[in-house]
């Protein structure tokens, strides 16, 4: 057991943040050493939601193991599923129909939008502004309804399967996505007006949680966390998968290295996601939505590493196959785990109030870290 508050010999106070704390967005437990109000040491204590997904996958078939990954980073469940499906397809050398590729990328980008919206609302709430949470959920609800119509689920989608997608998109899908884009474009300006341009918000965000480019790489940061420090690490650009190489979009880079830069990366990424969706929504080709695959999938012997860009960074799926129907070993390289390791570096020397701001902008999803 951890003592609630204890003092050490240097006049420092050791306190616990979490595992039940609104700012940690889940069951994350941080042991913080404070000198006055300044954080001198931070130690994450993980495992409160550890389910040993990697061990579970060793006894699941290549069709089944995909579904466990929806429970990892539940805010980008489509993208997690995508990584696993891509890994199996690459190993089996399955060509998937173009229609499925389009549906997959559209779904992934909608998920990214929904994830960034939730992050934006929750982050503003951490900083004491409650209204943005409702603004964000107003639009996120529309995406969830679109997902529900096609996938039958609102959170753990389980829609991507090896060879394509599980079933065809709903007849209303195209129209509703178009309506959503029109709606969202009129609302995203509100986000900037409410929060981004706010002086109080900027004063709290600027010059805190600084991590240099070299440190961000060394700590293994990916996604908006690293791109806020000017590290080019967008997997969609550097190692294009699916049809991302045919789509026009920019990799968002900011060079401020602080929490505000990371905030701006995420906001600008929303615009890029909208751009991708706009390009693809009218182009969905007719045809099959799933390639014919064998009922029992057996991967050839070998090792396969696939990576995709989730809303939080690079997700890697490392499959070691012995030629059987179940993986011999699976490792999920989750973006949150590495981003969390940089938290102490970012927080050290800042006030405890800044910790909440820095953590809010890191966008940690705890099931993704604990797996």
């Amino acid at each position, binding site marked *: 057991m951890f003592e609630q508050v204890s003092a050490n010999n240097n006049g420092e106070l050791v306190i616990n943040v979490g595992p039940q704390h609104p700012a940690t967005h889940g069951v994350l437990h941080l042991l913080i050493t404070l000198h006055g109000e300044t954080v001198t040491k931070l130690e994450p204590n*993980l*495992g409160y939601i*550890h389910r*040993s997904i*990697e*061990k579970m996958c060793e*006894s*699941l078939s290549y069709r089944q193991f995909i579904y466990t990954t929806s429970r990892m980073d539940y805010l980008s469940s489509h993208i997690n599923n995508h990584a696993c499906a891509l890994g199996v397809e*690459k*190993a089996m050398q399955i060509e998937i129909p173009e229609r499925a590729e389009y549906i997959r990328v559209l779904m992934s980008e909608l998920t990214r939008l929904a994830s960034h919206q939730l992050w934006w609302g929750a982050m503003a709430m951490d900083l004491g502004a409650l209204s943005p949470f409702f603004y964000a959920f107003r639009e996120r609800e529309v995406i969830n309804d679109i997902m529900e119509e096609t996938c039958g689920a609102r959170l753990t989608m389980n829609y991507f399967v090896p060879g394509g997608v599980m079933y065809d998109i709903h007849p209303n899908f195209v129209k509703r996505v178009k309506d959503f884009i029109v709606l969202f474009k009129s609302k995203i300006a509100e986000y900037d007006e409410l929060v981004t341009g706010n002086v109080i918000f900027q004063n709290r965000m600027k010059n805190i949680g600084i991590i240099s480019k*070299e*440190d961000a*790489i*060394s*700590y*293994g940061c*990916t996604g908006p966390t690293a791109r806020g420090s000017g*590290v*080019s*690490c967008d997997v969609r650009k*550097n190692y294009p998968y699916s049809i991302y190489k045919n789509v026009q979009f920019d990799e968002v880079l900011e060079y401020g290295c602080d929490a505000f830069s990371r905030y701006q990366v995420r906001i600008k990424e929303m615009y890029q996601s909208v751009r991708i969706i706009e390009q693809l929504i009218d182009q969905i080709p007719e045809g099959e939505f799933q390639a014919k695959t064998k009922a029992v999938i057996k991967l050839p012997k*070998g*090792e*396969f*590493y696939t990576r995709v860009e989730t809303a939080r960074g*690079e997700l*890697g799926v*490392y499959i*070691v196959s012995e030629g059987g129907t179940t993986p*011999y*070993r699976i*490792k999920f*390289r989750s973006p949150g*785990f*590495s981003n*969390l*390791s*940089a938290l102490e*570096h970012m927080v050290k020397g800042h006030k405890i109030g800044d910790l909440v701001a820095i953590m809010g902008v890191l966008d940690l999803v705890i099931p993704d870290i*604990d797996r």
Partner: protein
Amino acid sequence: MENEELIAQVQTRFPEASIVLGNDFPEVSIDSKQLLPVLQTLKTEPSLAFNFLFCETCVDWKTHFTMVYHLESTTHRHNLVIKANLDRVQPEIETACHLYRAAELHEREIFDLFGIIFTNHPHLRRILLTDDWVGYPLRKDYDDPINMIKL
């Protein structure tokens, strides 16, 4: 750098290492005692510049363990996999966390789930499981009659 060129360059630098082109990346198998000097060279040599350790994990092959390090160079955009076999009775390897800070948490996780000892690691202890947990769950011979569901 293209894979063939990369393999040739790594081979001239480390003649004892055996290199194969895997499905995704070139895979370099080295002796576990050589890990630190190899990583040091890969990181500091400007033409290689592997500065990003994006994945570190372990595989239990029943007779031995294999440590797997996935490296990337953010300047040259090439990737490399380093593999080192470890003895199953006393698995021990030097920590990489003084070269790559990302290794610190990854190695704690590997210690937690595989029981690999990383020498010179600043604070090697369990991370996901409780401190009094018995055994290492990701090992193939791990058995938990109560919590494990066998399909």
